[in-house]
Every structure is written in C-alpha cells, then in structure tokens.
C-alpha cells in the first residue's frame, strides 16, 4: 500500500536547546526524518529554537523557523505555513508535549492539521502512569504495585497489598529526601511516618521496591498493518534505581535466556498494540527480578528517544527514518533495509558484535551538586563503542570518554577506605570503584551484593583485572606475545597497558602495532547478506573486511562525547565539514564515538569509523586509510589536541597547521604574536608553583583570573578578589591539572566581552560575526547571552575589532576559521584568547548571516578562496540575533545557579527579530522562562551594582512594575526617586522574601552576587526562584537587556520568520 496522498506538507518540531535528558540525539532523529519526508517530495516545515543543530540548516527543510517552542509561536507558524500534518515524535518530550497542547487547545483541528506518527490517545497513555498501569493490569502484565497514601492507615493498607520490601517516597521534597526502603514492619512504620511529615502536602508514594532488578529496554517499530519488529534490545548494566540515561548500557541484552527475551519481545509488541502505537517507533522498559525472572513493565514512550538513537547506531537500522515513512502510511515490508538494499525494513537486526554506551557526567563542574545517581538523569553526554566481545567494547567505551588515562583507575593504588559505600551507592565513579575492589581481591558475589550489577558483567571485569596483574609483572620488552595479544584482543589500550607496566605508551605501541587490528562493518544482518556499508569499527586480532577508500580523501576527526563546553555545535561543524570537503572533490572519512550525533549517521560521510578518539585508535584508522589530509579544526578541543601528535607522525593537517595551533595555545608564543600584531592582552603570568603564583598576584594586584592550563569550558577557573580567594583557587586549579602551570591574568572587571568568528583563506579574511556578550566580563563566554550585531559599540570600536581580527589571522597564517575573544576595558581593546578552529558560536553566526560558514571553511582549507565561494568580507546580519544559554541547575540539585568563569550551560537557543529587545525576549522565552509583563520585581544587588540598577529599577517602574527590595538596596533606590517597598531577608523574620517567592507574589528577581558578598540568604533566593521557575537575573547587563525585552513584548508584535524568508530579504 503506498503512502497517504493527502499529505503534501509536514510540520516537524525539534527538541529545543540541549538539556540533561534531551540532547542532540533528537537532532540526529530530526535530520533523518526531514530527509525521509523530503525523499517523498513533501514540503517540510521545521521549528526548533536551537541554532547549533544540523536540522536547522536552511538547506534541509523547506521552511526553517528558529523560534521559541511555545504554543503561541507554533500557532503563528501553523497559520502562516498551513501544514497538512504534524509529526510530533522526533523532538523528544518537548515536541510531544507541545503537540498535545496544540491538540488540546483545538489549534490543530482549527487549522486542519493532522497529527501523524502518534495519536493523542497513545501519547496520553504513555504519559499517564495510572492509566497505563490499569491497561497493563487488565491485560495480565505486571507493573510496579503501590499507590499514594496521605496517612498511616492508607500507607499500611497499600503495604499489605504488596508485602516487603517497599519503597517510600514523600511527594514534593527536594531530591526525594525523607524516603527510603523498608524491609520490615518496624522500618516501614518509621520511614512512612517520617515521609508523611517531610512532605509539604502529607503525601507519600508506597511502592513495591524493584531496586536491584535487572533493567531492559526494547526498541520497537510497528506499522498500520500490525507488523511489529524489535530493532534492538538494550540491557542496563546498572540495575533498577539508576536512570537509563545514567546507566552504562549494553546491546544486545546479555543475561537473558532466549525464553526470557522472547517474553519481553511478545510483551513489547502487545503493549504497542494495546496503547495504539500504529505508525512508528517506541520503546518499552522492563524490570526483571534476577532471582525469579518475574517481569514488570516500567514504562513506554511512543516516540523516538535517546535509546532509539543508540539502537539505530548500535544496529545500523535507521529508526527515525523508518518511523517517519511509516507515519506517512507506508508499511514495513514496503521499505528497504538501507544497508543491505536487497532485504526489507521488516526484519530484526542481528548483531555480531557488542555495543556499549557509557554516560559522561559533569560533576567536576558542579561540586555542590548531589552526585548520587538516581532516577533523575544527570549525565550530559555519552559515548558508544563497538567490539567483537564485551570486554573489547567496554574498554573502548572507557577510552572514548576522554577522561584522562583511557583506563579505569590506577592499578597500583590502594582502594579507598569507604569502598563499600562507593559500591553500594550508585555514583559516577562507581565503575572505577568496582575495579579497585577487584584489584583488592574482592570476589564477585560480594561486589554483586553491593552493586547489584549482574555477575556476568563483573566476571568480565575480573578477567580484565586478572590480565592487568599478569601484564604488571612484565615490561614492554619482556611481555610474552601471547599475553599482549590477549590484552589487545580484550580491548586494552596501549596507554592502559603502559599505565599497568609503568612505562611510556610508545614502548607498548612499538610492540602492539605488530598485532592485527582490522575493521569490520555494521551491516544489520551479522554478515548473512553482502552489504555495501560505510559503517565500520575496529576489531583487535582480526582482519579487515574492507579495502581503504580509493581516490582523494580527507579524514575528519569528530568531537567525541557531549560535555559542558563541547557539544552539538561541534558536531554541526563536523557535518558541515563533510559537506564542504565533498564539494571540494574529496571522499570523506568520519572518526567519532558519540552515538547521539548526526556525524555518526552512516550516510553522512563516505565512511564512518566508530572508534575512540584517542591517538592509538585514530592513528590506526589513518594508517589503514592513508588519507591525503586530516581535518582537526571542526571537532572542538578533542580534535585540535590530536593535531600535534598526528602531525608528528607525518599526517598532513589540512588548513591551519599544527605549528600555528601550537603558537596560539602556548601562552608565551601567543604573547609574542600579540605583540607583533600591535595588540593588547591583560597582564598575565604563568606560575609553576604556589609560591610563584603568590608572588605574581602581589605584583599584578587584585582582581585576578586564575586558571589551569589545558582545560575545557573554564574548568576550575575563578576570579579572585583577595589573598584568601587566591589560596582556594590555586588549590582548585592545581587539583584540576596536576603538574601543569597555572595561568594568572589581571581580571578586567566591568569590561564588555566579545566573541568574533572569522574565516581566512591566506589572502583575505571574512569577519563572520562580532558578538557582544550580554553578561559582563568574568562570566564564561559559553554561559553569556550574546547579541549579533553588538548593541553597545561605536563604529570606531567595531572597525578596530575587525582590523585586529584580520591582523591576527594574517600574522598567524590561519587558513580556515579563527575565533577571537576580546574585552573592551576602559575604552581599550584587549585580546582574551584566540582559537584557530571552529568555535561554539559558528553555527549561531552562520544562521544569523545566512552562509554555511563551516562548510565554506572546509572548502577554503581544500584550496578555495573566500571570493570564489561568494562569501562577503563583512556579511550583514540583517536582523538582531541573540543567543542565550540553558542551564542544568534544576537537574543538579544543590548547585548554586550562579554564573562565573567556569562554564555550566548545556545548550543554547537563538532569538531573531527586528529589534534587540524583541530578539532578547524571544531568546529568553526559548529558554523556557516567561518574562513577566507586570507584577512585583524584587531587587537585591551588590553595592557596586547599585548605580546601574537604579536605571533598571526606574525603567521597570515606568513599565508598570511594583518594586520591592531588601533594606539597603531599597534605601539607595528610594534616595534616587524610585518608589520601592522594603521586604525582610529570610533571617529577619516573617513575612520575608522567601515567603513572597513561595506565595507566587514575585514576578521577577534581580539578584547580583558577584564577588565575595554572595551569602547564604542570596543563595536561597536563587534556589527558590529556580524551583518555582521565577525569572532570576544575576547580572546588571542582563537586567538592562531584560528591561528592553519587556518593553518589546509590551509594545511590539512577536513575529516568526523562517531562515528561508530572511535569505529572500537579503536578496
């Protein structure tokens, strides 16, 4: 049966900014969906607020809206574009929720838009736990038994129905505090009572405890003819109790017998039937009791998900693409398997390798956050690895994480004293603790009792520790070939073996390079059918099944796992680079290990090597393929760090050379460049130890910026105002990068900071964009909102910046992209830093000016000139564009939501409009906060900010706000003629500011805590604001921007323009 003929245009909703729990996997799914819909000749309308996505590139969809994902904007776009259908299943929970709101408000019906891919009923069944539970129960499937209780009698009744152990969770307490697991009546009475007391509304959830059960997910696809297939099964290595997103996972399931697996398969298909998922993908989660094999249905999601992206990469089966086609009315047997071409999409992939997903956390950046892993996801990214066995895949995952050593812990270290606790409470370093325990001789049973990680996995870890011990008895010279062969076969890296032997990696490599390491294909069918697949992974000890690509070719090194400071924007750049090199006549080879990305889709590059981005694995690919050149400028710091070692091995780095990269990264060399270019830098020193640092501090005077060298995203970077600060910061910096020098800079307080991106071809330099930070100096550039073009610079200043950037690019000899950060301090221009690579701001700037900058950079590197590409030397942005960051504070409880020099944001949004205020308002709205139009604004600022805030306060008053402030601020403002009321601080008795926030009386908070004056009271204000979603502005410059934005939303109509519209305006 062919597809529905009545659908000519489809609206697709993206997932918005990257947040914990919703990351670039939806860019990957969305891109596949758009391509699938375009293949059918449909007009595709896309809405997504995230400019760093590949999907928002204007050449993918027919109409691309980078607008806030709100019902209002969606309706405006629907009115304008009149789509026939809405596909809500590709943009995560965000898209699904939006589609539900649009349906419930009758907006879809009013405009004749058909919801395809998932019905309203199916979506609500997935959302409503009680309805879902009833449906399961009615069909003889078990769910977690339990219910809500409001007093001890109700609690006892529920407990009686389920026995022991039970888990008690008080409602509405931060982090679920006050709950626990009860194994006896006595424990139950105590915990339930405490829970009822702790809960503000005296409500507890009493549920059967399935903590410690095995957890599985099945990725299912069903079509309208009731054909259903399981694309992949995934087993969580961490037992129930840890969010799937925070679990190490394995595909396919490893510890289920065939009968158990088939039962889960049957149940999954039946659940899709019952829920009514008719045209697309879904995932079903199960818990299995390891003692009895009893199965509990945990939940079902009727959409593509993080897991389905992983399943697609793990199997080679493009779930999003197939789901999009099914939504149009195709059936599975009408679609071809993209990889084999000769078999249909209606089959179940068979794997002949093991796949591991390992999450990547960022707790080092959030020292106050609770680092225990629970049912609230906390990781910010993930890696995937493939190997011809569990051990090989697992160790390659560890190597992919880019967290130092490429191995788990240091074999010679004594285990910590609190090892039992480190094993029994799930945490981000637990894997390391397991290795410590095994090295200390703990047996598997004991570790199982503490971790509930299936002994099958632990036995593999024990094997690894065993071979570590054997290797440890040898040096690279004495190691028997058979032992080394086995170690490599099991996936140990040269670096890992060197760590065990206590020698240099190169000595191990000299031996291991003689052993075979081949490349196998991911073909969906375990080799049963011949497949022309470009998707490869390394297999130690086996031979390659492919020949190197023939003809001119360039390898592009990806950006690895998403983390704070390096995320989707670099994947965007990599994908653009692939396109650029293809246009320049090269075949492209992508090397990356992040399953969430578009760059690792098997049809992006001519070849994809899914391998860890460590020197050993990257050079192996390059030695096999022998590309003409390697591109390191697109994958952020990950790829850039490989430039020098790869150049030393004789590989040609395309574009900016490794020598130039070194000159920019080396402080001394860079200072010489700055001097030669007649530019200025803030005074700075490099200290090699504590004493030197103190001496330099005395010499330069406070405030200072202290930071370690070689870090990402401002890790352990801080501003110090006095000697006490200095002490603490130096300790932090030295801990972050031991034995590395510490950089000490004069801090340019109150400066305006700028990000500039430029493209140089060796002759000319195009200034892609000058972006002015809205937050002031001292806040990491990635955490600051920025505006393009700059709002507060004179024409002279802008010209000076352009001149400086051109001079830098020319003096350095950059071929490709250059990002420079500047500060304007006391009317003088200072260079903060420069990076000769694609930067975080490139996707935003590219969308603002309407040119595919990263793609052009690749072409320039391959020899094209800026002129030949038609890129103006000073492209005009046409409108105002604001980029705003999104923070994970609501997911990482305990962390102070205050900005500083260490980057904390996970993602970004873009707002574009004809006025700055309007653009800022859109960006603000897109970060999921709503600016108030009226109400009560609370102001509490440090003394140094009071002068500036007086203007802001007056403006807010004129806009119709009533103002309240704590006594000091209030007095200051009243003296300057601003009508304002006093409000008590928390410790000054009730009613106080906390009561007012909790009662919903406060519409806007302006609270600047910079410097040392931030104290506990302020922190609680910010926590409450965060918890209750009240806009909380923590800098004066953002406060000014907010005033402009509120003025705009009160006076102007917010419009929506597609990127394609803007391109037409530009002519």
């Amino acid at each position, binding site marked *: 049966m062919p597809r529905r003929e009545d659908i000519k245009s489809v609206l697709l909703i993206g997932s918005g900014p990257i947040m914990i729990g919703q990351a670039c996997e939806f860019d990957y799914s969305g891109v596949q969906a758009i391509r699938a819909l375009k293949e059918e000749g449909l007009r595709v309308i896309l809405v997504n607020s995230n400019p760093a996505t590949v999907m928002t590139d204007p050449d993918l969809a027919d109409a691309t809206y980078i607008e806030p994902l709100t019902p209002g904007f969606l309706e405006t776009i629907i009115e304008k574009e009149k789509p026939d259908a809405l596909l809500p299943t590709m943009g995560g929970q965000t898209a699904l929720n939006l589609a539900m709101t649009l349906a419930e408000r009758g907006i879809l019906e009013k405009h004749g838009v058909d919801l395809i891919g998932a019905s309203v009923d199916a979506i609500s069944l997935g959302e409503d736990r009680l309805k879902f539970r009833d449906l399961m129960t009615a069909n003889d499937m078990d769910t977690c038994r339990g219910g809500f209780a409001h007093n001890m009698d109700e609690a006892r009744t529920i407990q009686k129905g389920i026995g022991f152990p039970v888990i008690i969770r008080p409602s509405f307490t931060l982090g679920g505090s006050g709950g626990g697991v009860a194994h006896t009546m006595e424990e139950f009475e105590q915990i339930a009572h405490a829970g009822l007391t702790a809960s503000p509304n005296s409500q507890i959830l009493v549920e059967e405890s399935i903590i410690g059960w095995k957890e599985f997910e099945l990725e299912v696809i069903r079509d309208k*003819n009731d054909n259903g297939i399981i694309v992949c099964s995934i087993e969580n290595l961490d037992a129930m109790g840890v969010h799937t997103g925070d679990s190490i996972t394995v595909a396919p399931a490893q*510890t*289920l017998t065939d009968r158990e697996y088939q039962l889960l398969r049957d149940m999954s298909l039946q659940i899709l039937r019952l829920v009514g998922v008719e045209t697309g993908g879904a995932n079903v989660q199960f818990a299995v009791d390891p003692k009895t094999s009893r199965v509990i249905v945990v939940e079902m999601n009727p959409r593509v998900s993080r897991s389905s992206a992983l399943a697609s990469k793990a199997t080679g089966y493009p779930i999003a693409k197939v789901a999009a086609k099914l939504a149009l009315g195709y059936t599975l047997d009408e679609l071809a398997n993209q990889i084999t071409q000769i078999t249909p999409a209606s*089959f179940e992939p*068979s794997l*002949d390798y093991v796949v591991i997903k390992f999450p990547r956390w960022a707790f080092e950046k959030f020292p106050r956050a609770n680092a225990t892993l629970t049912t609230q996801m906390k990781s910010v990214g993930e890696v995937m690895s493939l190997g011809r066995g569990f051990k090989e895949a697992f160790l390659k995952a560890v190597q992919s994480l880019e967290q130092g050593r490429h191995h788990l812990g240091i074999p010679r270290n004594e285990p910590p004293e609190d090892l039992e606790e480190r094993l029994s409470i799930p945490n981000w370093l637990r894997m390391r603790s397991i290795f410590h325990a095994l090295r200390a001789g703990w047996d598997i049973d004991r570790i199982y009792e503490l971790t509930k990680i299936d002994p099958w996995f632990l036995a593999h870890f024990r*094997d690894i520790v065993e071979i570590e011990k054997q290797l440890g008895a040898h040096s690279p010279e004495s190691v028997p070939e058979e032992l080394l062969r086995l170690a490599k076969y099991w996936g140990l890296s040269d670096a890992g073996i060197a760590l065990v032997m206590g020698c240099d990696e190169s000595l191990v490599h000299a031996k291991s390079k003689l052993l075979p390491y081949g490349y*196998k294909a991911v073909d969906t069918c375990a080799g049963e059918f011949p497949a022309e697949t470009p998707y490869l992974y390394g297999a130690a000890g086996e031979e390659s099944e492919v020949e190197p690509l023939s003809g001119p070719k360039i390898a592009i090194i990806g950006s690895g796992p998403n983390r704070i400071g390096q995320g989707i924007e670099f994947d965007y750049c990599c994908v653009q680079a692939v396109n650029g090199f293809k246009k320049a006549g090269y075949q492209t080879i992508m090397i990356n290990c992040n399953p969430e990305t578009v760059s690792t889709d098997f049809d992006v590059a001519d070849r994809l090597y899914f391998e860890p981005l460590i020197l050993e694995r990257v050079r192996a690919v390059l030695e096999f393929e022998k590309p003409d050149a390697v591109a390191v400028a697109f994958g952020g710091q990950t790829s850039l760090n490989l430039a020098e070692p790869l150049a030393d091995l004789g590989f040609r780095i395309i574009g900016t050379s490794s020598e130039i990269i070194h000159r920019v990264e080396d402080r001394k060399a860079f200072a010489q460049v700055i001097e030669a270019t007649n530019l200025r830098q803030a005074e700075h020193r490099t200290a090699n130890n504590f004493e030197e640092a103190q001496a330099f501090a005395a010499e330069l005077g406070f405030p200072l910026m202290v930071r370690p060298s070689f870090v990402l995203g401002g890790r352990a970077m801080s501003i110090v105002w006095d000697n006490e600060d200095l002490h603490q910061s130096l300790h932090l910096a030295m801990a972050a990068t031991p034995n590395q020098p510490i950089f000490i800079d004069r801090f340019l307080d109150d400066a305006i900071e700028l990000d500039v991106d430029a493209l140089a071809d060796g002759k000319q330099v195009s200034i892609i964009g000058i972006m002015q930070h809205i937050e002031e100096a001292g806040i990491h550039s990635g955490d600051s909102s920025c505006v393009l073009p700059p709002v507060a610079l004179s024409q002279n200043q802008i010209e000076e910046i352009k001149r400086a950037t051109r001079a830098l690019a020319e003096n350095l000899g950059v071929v490709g992209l250059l990002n420079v950060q500047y500060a304007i301090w006391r009317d003088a221009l200072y260079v903060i830093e420069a990076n000769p690579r694609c930067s975080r701001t490139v996707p935003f700037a590219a969308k603002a000016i309407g040119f595919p900058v990263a793609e052009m950079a690749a072409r320039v590197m391959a020899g094209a000139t800026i002129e030949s590409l038609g890129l103006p030397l000073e492209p005009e942005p046409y409108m105002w564009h604001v980029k705003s960051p999104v923070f994970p504070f609501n997911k990482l409880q305990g962390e102070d939501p205050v900005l500083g020099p260490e980057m904390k944001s996970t993602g970004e949004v873009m707002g574009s409009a004809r006025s700055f205020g309007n653009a800022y308002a859109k960006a603000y709205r897109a970060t999921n906060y709503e600016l108030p139009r009226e109400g009560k604004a609370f102001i509490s600022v440090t003394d140094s900010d009071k002068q500036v805030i007086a203007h802001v306060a007056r403006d807010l008053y004129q806009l119709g706000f009533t103002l309240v402030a704590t006594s000091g601020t209030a007095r200051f403002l009243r003296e300057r003629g601003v009508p304002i009321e006093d409000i008590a601080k928390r410790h000054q008795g009730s009613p106080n500011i906390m009561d007012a926030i909790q009662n919903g009386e406060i519409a806007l908070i302006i609270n600047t805590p910079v410097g040392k004056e931030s104290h506990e009271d302020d922190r609680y204000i910010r926590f409450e604001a965060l918890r209750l979603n009240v806009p909380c502005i923590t800098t004066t410059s953002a406060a000014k921007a907010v005033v402009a934005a509120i003025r705009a939303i009160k006076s102007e109509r917010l419009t929506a323009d597609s990127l394609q519209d803007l391109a037409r305006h530009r002519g």
Partner: protein
Amino acid sequence: MQGYLLFPDGRALQGELIGAKRPQLGELVFNTSMTGYQEILTDPSYHRQIVVLTYPEVGNYGCHLEVSESTLGHAAGMVLRNLSPGSFHNRYQQTFDAFLAEIGVTAIIGLDTRKLTQMIRDEGPRNVMIVPAHIAADDAAKELAAAPGMAGANLVPEVSTREKVIHGDGETHIVLLDLGIKLATIRALVERGCRVTQVPWNTDFEAIQALKPDGILLSNGPGDPSAVPGVRPTVAKLMEHYPTMGICLGFQLMALSIGGETYKLPFGHRGGNHPVKFEGRVVITSQNHGFAVHEHSIPTDSCEITHHSLFDGSLEGFRMREKPVFGVQFHPEAAPGPNDCLDHFDYFLKSVNESKGGTHA
C-alpha cells in the same frame, strides 16, 4: 586445549577447544540468533553440522536441562568467538562448557566468526573438521576428504525416536511423525490440549491409522529431504486422510509427496530474525534449513502458496485448497526465536477439531 578448524582445502584456523575436545566432522553452517545457544545446539536438525554462532558472546546464562530441545540429536560441533567467563542465572545448572562435554560435542572458540560467516555466505557450506592440536592435519584431512556431503544424506534414522512415546493426555490426538523433532513442538501441542503420540520416522501408514489420530504433525529434521527413503508414500497417504501440518523437513516431504521439488540453498536460512509474508502481514520467524522447496513445483490447482521469505523470496509455506493440510518451512514452535507464529498451531488444531470424528478422504 588448543585445536584447529580444518577445511577441505587444507586451511586450518587455530583456536581453543572446549566441551568434549574430540575431533568432530560436519557441514559448516552459521546461525544469526543472538540468544538460544542451548536450543540451537540440541536441535536435531543440526545433526552432523558444525554451527558458527554469529553472536560473539556465548554461554552467558549457562545451560538448564529443561531448555534442551532433544536428547536424541544435536549439532556435531560449534564455532564461537568468545566463551562467557562464567554462567549466571537463577535457573543455571551447568556451564555451557560442561554441557557440551556431557553431550559429547566439541566447540572451538576464539575464531573470527564473522569472516567464517561471510565465507560460508560467499562460497557455500562445506564439510569441515574440528581437530585437537595433537592430531596431525594430514590424518584429519584424509577423514575430512572421505566424508560425504549433505546433499543426498539421509540423517533422519539417526535422530528419530526408536519407539513410540506418548506426551500429554488431552482430548485431541496428534500423531507426530518424528523426523528429528524439537521438544518445543510437542510442548506447543500439549499446551493446547493434545495427546501426542511420537512415532519413529519409518512407521507406516497402517500403523499410524491404527493409532486413530485426529491429526498428523510431520516434524522437522536434518539432512536432504529427497534422500529420506520410503517416507513419501506414507506422507502422501497421511495428507490424504488426516488434517496435517508439516514443519521444515516435514514440510519439504509434504511438497515432495505431491510432486514438488527441493533444492539446496546457497547457504541456508538459520536464525531468529527471518521475515515471512503471510496473509498480507509480516511475521518474524525462527528458521533452520539448508534445503528449500521450489515454488514452481507446487501444483497450484490443489495448493495455495501462503508464505514467502522476505529475505530471498523463497517458498515458506503452502496449504491444500480442499483439505485441512498445510506446511511451513520455518519453525513456528520457535525455541529459540520469536513466538510470532505459535498461532499456526491454533490454526492447525482448529482444523483438526473441525474434522474430528472422521477422516476427510
């Protein structure tokens, strides 16, 4: 123990032997199932075959007695990538290694199973030998060269029951002609209220008639369907008189007995992910067959083609137009593999019960 996998052309792949650690000779085939190694090993249809498991981790959950599909026949040997460093499961009774030793099967581990699979796919199946290192390749090569191929091999007598066995005590009486039956099929029937009488492969029509069956099941089994002597007339008469269901080899014999032809597939269908088109829908099936039935050889006046493989278009099932008789090439009893087609037994028993009380001849 070290050993090697010996090919007729003299190639020898080194690996480690587990299980019985004895020389084993058989036709090299591969199976792409990701679970169910014990079911595969104990499926009599793998008699005299050496099975490459494409999934690399094997032995994870050990072996459990009740999972074995037969005690009469099994694969001759297995080729694995990795053996689990232990077996862990609440039903666990024995490691895979110990189980292999107990039933006398040798497996070789540490081989590039993907490369072997691609070789079988591209060059077709052939006899190979698993050989302990202490046996010289020359001696083994002679034995290998002398071994007959699978075409023309009648292996049924080696795996069929020697005497009549009765399972269950239900109302409906099914006589099961045992050509190498898997226990899952018997389970499927008994669970559906049948009394099953399992009879030796060469039981004649009259003897079966004397058992007063309500329906007949022709089982799966090993070897070349065209080489099973004397069964065709029996099958033809059974189909004539009783509601009949055929599975795999049983299905092939049904086809042969109505004038159909069988042929050897290039590399067989063995796995748990095979899509089959049936009544406009796609079902995912468990398969294990090296031979297949030519679709054009099935008389369409008396038969209707019902099932096709979506992998290669080959014939997967037909039914007779005027009689409650049908057969499928795949394994509706699963074990291992998906349960999508267990309803075929319901369909069969419905026709059995409808025609109860008399033959349809």
